[in-house]
């Protein structure tokens, strides 16, 4: 990696810096300090690597003490030992020190960012003895389904719209290839590592995007750091969205670097008009070059469409927003992306696409409904409520920081306008659809790269400004305090937002085994009943069974159901139905935490169904109960 040195930082406190020397030699390395005793460690060097080493040692030593099997109301939060939290603080401190040399030694902030990713999201990957997060388990079931069939059946019309996975199968076919090539039994062998792997792959792409808009490596790495802390939204598990987002960012990176129209940069070509931290606009490209680039992007755009139904829409609105700037008005590329999306939607994705079009009339303009989180219900319980509040505060904090940068660093906002537009572009999708209660999280995710960049710009004052653009020492001093405080605050916000509801995500292997046995027992065409689909192996053998997750509805309806659950269910089952009711511990935690059932509701439901003559218990363990219903 060539070492461009736009803004080497002096000996000041992290977050502030001395004005940069002239940067005429981009690949120059700052001169060595005049003299030092041979063999004597330089304090600055020591402070750069020692925190990483200590943090790694603390993190590893904390692992055996993490009581994930006995999580209480606060999820993992109160099961993580002090040494774990100390390791996070040490990583933050080390990162801040490493920023001083971000221009000349980028591997240090890179190592700290990778270390943070591992420290934050690697715990379940290393420790858990089962699949983390029931939705990941569902995706595992989809991979198994594809591997068992060896073909795609987009028109099969499976229960619960599960055929959508055959209509946008790219992520699952890729994992099918990996499962076979790894020689693993299923994706369960590696799915807990998805957040770490996806995060590592995403990091250089983010870096590439940020470097296109800033030459200040401190700002760039701080943005990467903030992105990781603000990425609590949990879309990085083994799911099409994680891969789709990576591909989306890759397309964005290529566009901002290679699709600048000639003569469009205007004043931005003049260094005097740029923020001291801003990068010059990339060199313009001719029509033919951009056409070649579009061809290069076609496989990535096709893969985005093969992988996920929402990401192509996000990509198209992002490209459309970029067309609002003179710099990136590339209607041809937008047409290519739109054409590929339409072609996929009208062929492979036709069934769900047509169904969604049919429901648009109802959802269009329902802003409040479309921006709600989840199916229904309110977060209930100390941990989930804390997680909810932390999530909101995190969104507000990042938005406030980004907003401050837009006000305080208007020239940077001007030169990085494309990134701002790319972040804002997904917001109007609230008007269109609720995406199964997920739109809020998806819009946040797609807005995050730009928001993190501008949040970092608010915290890392520019260096090297002269004259009217000179940064006042007081601003630098404020930045020196604000940066570590804010990073620590975001870290404090990340933990409850990501791990506050962790009890819903960890499932003991014995519960998984119970569900698997129950579903294996069910004859073909039987109906699987459960309060929610959020439990492990819920969709095991999903192509041979029907499903009804009967509590995924508004609380009043569930309260009505709880008055006589056996009657409620039996009157709604078609004659001749053989149904299995699976009620597990994870469902109990989920329905209580998400507010689908009132306190004690799950227990009374289980009790009433087990006592009903219409249902009889097939199996009962400490992790749940399985009941069978035979239609009279």
């Amino acid at each position: 990696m060539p070492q461009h040195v736009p803004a080497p930082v002096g000996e000041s406190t992290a977050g502030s810096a001395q004005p940069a020397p002239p940067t005429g030699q981009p690949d120059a390395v700052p001169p060595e300090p005049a003299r030092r005793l041979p063999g004597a460690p330089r304090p600055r060097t020591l402070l750069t690597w020692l925190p990483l080493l200590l943090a790694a040692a603390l993190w590893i030593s904390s692992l055996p003490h993490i009581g994930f099997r006995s999580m209480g109301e606060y999820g993992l939060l109160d099961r993580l030992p002090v040494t774990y939290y100390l390791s996070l603080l040490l990583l933050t401190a080390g990162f801040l020190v490493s920023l001083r040399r971000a221009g000349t030694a980028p591997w240090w902030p890179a190592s700290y960012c990778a270390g943070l990713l591992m420290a934050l999201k690697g715990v379940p990957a290393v420790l858990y003895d089962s699949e983390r997060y029931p939705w990941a388990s569902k995706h595992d079931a989809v991979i198994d389904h594809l591997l068992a069939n060896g073909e795609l059946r987009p028109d099969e019309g499976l229960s619960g719209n599960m055929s959508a996975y055959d209509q946008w199968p790219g992520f699952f076919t890729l994992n099918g290839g990996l499962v076979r090539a790894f020689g693993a039994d299923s994706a369960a062998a590696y799915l807990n590592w998805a957040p770490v792997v996806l995060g590592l792959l995403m990091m250089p792409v983010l870096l590439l995007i940020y470097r296109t808009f800033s030459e200040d490596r401190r700002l760039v790495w701080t943005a990467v750091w903030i992105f990781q802390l603000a990425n609590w939204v949990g879309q990085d598990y083994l799911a099409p969205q994680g891969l789709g987002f990576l591909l989306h960012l890759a397309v964005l990176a290529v566009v901002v670097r290679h699709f600048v129209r000639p003569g469009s940069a205007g004043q931005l070509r003049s260094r005097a008009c740029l923020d001291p931290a801003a990068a010059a606009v990339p060199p313009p490209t001719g029509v033919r070059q951009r056409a070649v680039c579009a061809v290069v992007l076609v496989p990535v755009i096709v893969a985005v469409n093969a992988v996920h139904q929402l990401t192509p829409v996000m990509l198209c609105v992002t490209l459309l927003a970029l067309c609002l700037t003179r710099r990136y008005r590339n209607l041809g590329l937008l047409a290519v992306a739109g054409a590929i999306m339409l072609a996929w939607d009208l062929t492979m994705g036709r069934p769900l696409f047509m169904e969604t079009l049919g429901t648009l009339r109802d959802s269009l303009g329902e802003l409040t409904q479309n921006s709600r989180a989840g199916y229904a219900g309110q977060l209930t319980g100390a941990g989930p409520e804390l997680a909810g509040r932390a999530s909101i505060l995190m969104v507000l904090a990042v938005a406030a920081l980004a907003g401050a940068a837009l006000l305080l660093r208007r020239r940077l906002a001007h030169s990085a306008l494309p990134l701002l537009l790319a972040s804002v572009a997904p917001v109007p999708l609230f008007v269109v659809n609720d995406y199964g209660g997920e739109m809020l999280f998806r819009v946040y995710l797609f807005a995050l790269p730009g928001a993190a960049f501008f949040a970092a710009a608010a915290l890392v004052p520019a260096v090297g400004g002269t004259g009217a653009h000179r940064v006042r020492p007081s601003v630098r001093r404020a930045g020196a305090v604000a940066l570590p405080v804010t990073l620590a605050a975001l870290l404090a916000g990340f933990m409850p937002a990501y791990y506050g509801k962790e009890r819903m995500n960890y499932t003991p292997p014995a519960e998984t085994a119970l569900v698997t046995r129950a579903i294996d027992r069910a004859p073909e065409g039987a109906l699987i009943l459960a309060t929610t689909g959020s439990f492990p192996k819920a969709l095991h053998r999903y192509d041979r069974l029907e499903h009804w997750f009967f509590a995924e509805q508004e609380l009043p309806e569930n309260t009505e159901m709880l008055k006589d659950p056996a009657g409620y269910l039996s009157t709604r089952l078609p004659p001749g139905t053989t149904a299995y009711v699976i009620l597990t511990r994870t469902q109990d935690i989920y329905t209580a935490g998400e507010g689908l059932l009132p306190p004690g509701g799950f227990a009374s439901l289980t009790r009433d169904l087990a006592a009903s003559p219409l249902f009889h218990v097939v199996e009962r363990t400490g992790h749940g109960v399985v009941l069978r219903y035979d239609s009279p």
Partner: protein
Amino acid sequence: MSENRRPVLPARQVLTRTALGLSGWVALAATALPGGTPLRWSPVLLFVCFGPGLALLYPQSGPLRPGARLEAAALAAPLGLSLAVTVATSLFLVEAFSGTAFLVSLAALTTLASALPGLPLPAATRGAVERTPAAPARRR
């Protein structure tokens, strides 16, 4: 080494291209090992993530802009995974999917790509007129 003695392809580039060209076949050979062992899954994972992408993006000709190598490294995985998605989905569509077919297709593609010049990403190789003065030898 003087300019007129420089070989058509520097040894390092030949080595990298050869390694990339062989990477898929090494991953395929690793599948002969028992399932789930690190010696099996690690070369496969590295190859699927980076092999095809790096083979397509490397090497770029001409003087590189700052960040061009980072660009190749950053885009290698998305590009490679895109190809892997396309290959795997196509194999399912023609009902010819198997782990071997998946790896052989990607390995063949990678070998072919490693023999060709890198994809022409224009701003990666062009000198930015605003910042980088052209080398005297290149001025016309």
